[in-house]
């Protein structure tokens, strides 16, 4: 069997950032192989032609292709091999990767380290079980985005969008700019799942109504979508549609932006532990999964709202994989589990592996609901505060982060504490 030091599965922003970081940490570029399933690297950013990427990372506003282009250039400058049209078919927990590509055929490679960077997929109509007919014209927002931005065609002309995730909001604007009429964006929750800036720039600026606490209850049309029925939902009754509130929209297209699911079929196949809240692998602060030497970063780990954070997370994974291969990783003394308290849905990482001399660890997390005037708190199981920060507003659509300073982690290490709790406290009523 062929051997390789580092295999990175996915050549999107996560995989490329990880590859670049691994080289910058001392790994020889020829020891890395990036496997990309599409015909060119860059991932889903290649079809995200709107601006808004890179403010944190590069201090300027880039389009998706520009952002991915920078990472492709960095990878090429370093001579990192990227194999396109390469689909990984299976992975084992001892890092055997089987993939297929037109160039290499059907191949299995034993790797010293693997970085999972497969990204995510969109939730579909089937996952929501929207009743009605099954005509043409029901697209996930990303599929419609591909038709417009890559293929150069219009997926429809009179559009209703279900779900106010960022892709849905972006597509409301994109379809409008291309001459389509977007009748409404319906959101089953009482708040949008997208970034506030996208609501303003993509809906408000174009006069597109956002119908909160509404959902699509029926799809009509035999061959092509002819209309959808929208109804208000009852917050107090499991968000069930409220009879009598139905409204019919004549349209030829229904776009779905109802959530992203980390694409972890390979991870699951390898028997790696998953976090039920993130639907991604459970990791330590280096993004190492339960399988030693297998790391995960980007949207395959948890869905990010900014690609800048994906790159940051991938850097961490890339450096850690390089350190493992080069044999210069600090030995782990003991692990501490991160748990979620009031108002916190999940954290990444889920555990911190403490070395003798701990370093700062940045904890990413999402809140469970919209809150105003809160304090974000990280404390030990014994109640000792490690971080405490005031925030005027938080929402599930915007990822939060707090850094635990090295000195505090050194205290935790010595205290024998086994758990760290991340929570929010409400400083006044909602």
């Amino acid at each position: 069997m062929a051997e390789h030091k580092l295999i990175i599965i996915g050549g999107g922003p996560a995989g490329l950032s990880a590859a670049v970081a691994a080289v910058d940490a001392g790994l020889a570029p020829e020891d890395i192989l990036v496997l990309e399933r599409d015909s060119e690297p860059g991932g889903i950013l290649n079809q995200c032609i709107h601006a808004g990427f890179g403010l944190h990372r590069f201090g300027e506003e880039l389009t998706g292709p520009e952002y991915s282009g920078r990472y492709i250039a960095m990878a090429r400058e370093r001579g990192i091999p990227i194999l396109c049209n390469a689909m990984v078919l299976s992975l084992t927990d001892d890092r055997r990767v089987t993939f297929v590509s037109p160039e290499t055929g059907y191949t299995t490679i034993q790797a010293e380290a693997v970085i999972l960077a497969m990204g995510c997929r969109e939730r579909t109509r089937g996952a929501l079980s929207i009743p009605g007919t099954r005509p043409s014209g029901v697209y996930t927002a990303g599929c419609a985005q591909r038709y417009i931005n890559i293929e150069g065609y219009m997926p429809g002309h009179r559009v209703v969008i279900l779900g106010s995730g960022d892709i849905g909001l972006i597509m409301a604007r994109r379809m409008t700019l291309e001459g389509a009429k977007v009748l409404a964006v319906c959101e089953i929750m009482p708040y949008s799942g997208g970034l506030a800036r996208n609501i303003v720039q993509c809906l408000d600026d174009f006069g597109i109504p956002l119908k909160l606490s509404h959902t699509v209850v029926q799809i009509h049309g035999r061959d092509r979508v002819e209309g959808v029925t929208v109804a208000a939902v009852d917050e107090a009754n499991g968000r069930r549609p409220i009879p009598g509130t139905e409204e019919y929209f004549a349209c030829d297209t229904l776009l779905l932006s109802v959530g992203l699911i980390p694409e972890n079929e390979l991870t699951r196949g390898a028997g790696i532990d998953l976090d039920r809240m993130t639907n991604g692998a459970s990791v330590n602060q280096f993004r190492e999964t339960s399988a030693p030497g297998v790391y995960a970063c980007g949207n395959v780990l948890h869905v990010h709202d900014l690609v800048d954070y994906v790159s940051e997370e991938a850097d961490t994974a890339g450096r850690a994989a390089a350190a493992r291969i080069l044999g210069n990783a600090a030995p782990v003394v003991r692990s501490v589990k991160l748990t979620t308290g009031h108002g916190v849905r999940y954290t990444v990482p889920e555990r911190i592996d403490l070395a003798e001399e701990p370093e700062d660890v940045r904890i990413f997390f999402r809140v469970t609901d919209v809150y105003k005037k809160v304090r974000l708190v990280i404390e030990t199981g014994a109640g000792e505060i490690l971080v405490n920060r005031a925030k005027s507003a938080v929402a599930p659509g915007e990822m939060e982060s707090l850094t635990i300073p090295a000195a505090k982690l050194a205290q935790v290490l010595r205290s024998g504490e086994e758990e760290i709790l991340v929570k929010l406290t409400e400083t006044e009523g909602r």
Partner: protein
Amino acid sequence: MLYDVLIIGAGCTGVMTARLLSTKNVKVAVAEAGPDVATGATAANSAIVHAGYDAKPGTLKAQLNVRGNRLMKELCAALGVECKNVGSHVIGFGEGDLPMLEELLARGRANGIPDLEIIGQDRLRAMEPNVSPEATHSLWAPTAAITCPYGITIAAAENAVTNGVDFYFHFRVTDASRAGDIHYITNGTETLAARYVVNCAGVHSAEVAAILGENDFPITITPRRGEYFILDKAVGGLAHSTLFVCPSDRGKGILVSPTVDGNLIVGPNAYPIGDSDDRSTTAEGLAEISAGARRIMPDIPMNMAITSFAGVRSTPNQYDFYLKASDQIPGVIHAVGVEPPGFASSPATAEYLVGLLEEAGLALTDKPDYIPTRRRDGNHIQWNRLTEEEKAAKCRENPAYGKIVCRCETVTEGDLLDMLDAPIPAVTIDMMKKRLRAGMGRCQGGFCSPRVAALIAERTGHDLDEINKSGPGSWLVTKREEA
């Protein structure tokens, strides 16, 4: 062209009949209203090759189901279509259900089904650890099997085309006439001539009988819609065999079964509907199925549903299938009211219908150069189903097999190109989906459908805006308006 036999309807019954006739020295055509074979009830049912204990002894249903069960397995093997002998349980909840299970056991034995037995809770739970703790008995039928109903129908249709059968799609029969012993069947723009006509028009078969000129036709059809869920392959292992509930006055009930592709199928309910082509699902119906599934398997994760759909059965106003030569119109054979177990029965129904054609005077001799496979050069097994060595060899031979287009179901570009060159070329998204499962996985085509459409457009010399999801009018995209 004068055909010896014209079959109306390319569902499983029509296609199996065409395939069987293609082994003989006769010229056969199939006229189908839809854009493909297997677009009606054959595409949307429980995908079970029933053992045959349900049908009352002495009926055609019983005779054809039991024989069809055996023939279906043989045909799947011959055409390279997967068929798994998973067996089925009819689950009883308490002593009250025992008499019904005994009744089914007796019927099954009378119908000649081997190895049927009633088993107790311990054995049932050992075989199916996820069934409800309230399940106390089951009728175990090891000969029940699962396959892909449209998969085997497509395979049989390809085999038929390879042996000279002509398929006419988008051919909805609107009128028929007769001159001497020749039937002229038209869709309004095109007319086909044949000596014999077989009406296999499924839910429209009573209407077709009237078009063919039957007066006071004894059979009326009530379309009955059944809704289903398909669950992700990640939970496909929760059931090892088909799990029915003991029939009661509440109907045959909802089943949970593995599919041959590794998913779970859950359904159906059964409601009469007015419009026989109305295959829409309802919120109430889907909720009913979820509840029914939980009765069998309390912890079934319905949140792992990847899609839902509905099929329409053609329930006749009599218990049995109506398979008869017309007593009014010479040369016309009817297969009407073919409801469940119509799919499991179909290879045997085809034999029966061919027998009726012979009785009506059609002379049949074996075709010496009959080709027993889907194509002249074999069955063209999908890349994903090959062994590792075969996969590697196939990629070396043609790099297109190394390019995965549908990642959820591991469909290669080579497979898609192969289907564009098939005896019935796959030229729509749904045709590709049915043949290769491209777009049938957990992402439901979100990723691959633009790529599949682009490949069809490129290879057929069409523009992307001319490619349909299924029939005419099911367009995917239009050209952008130039500013």
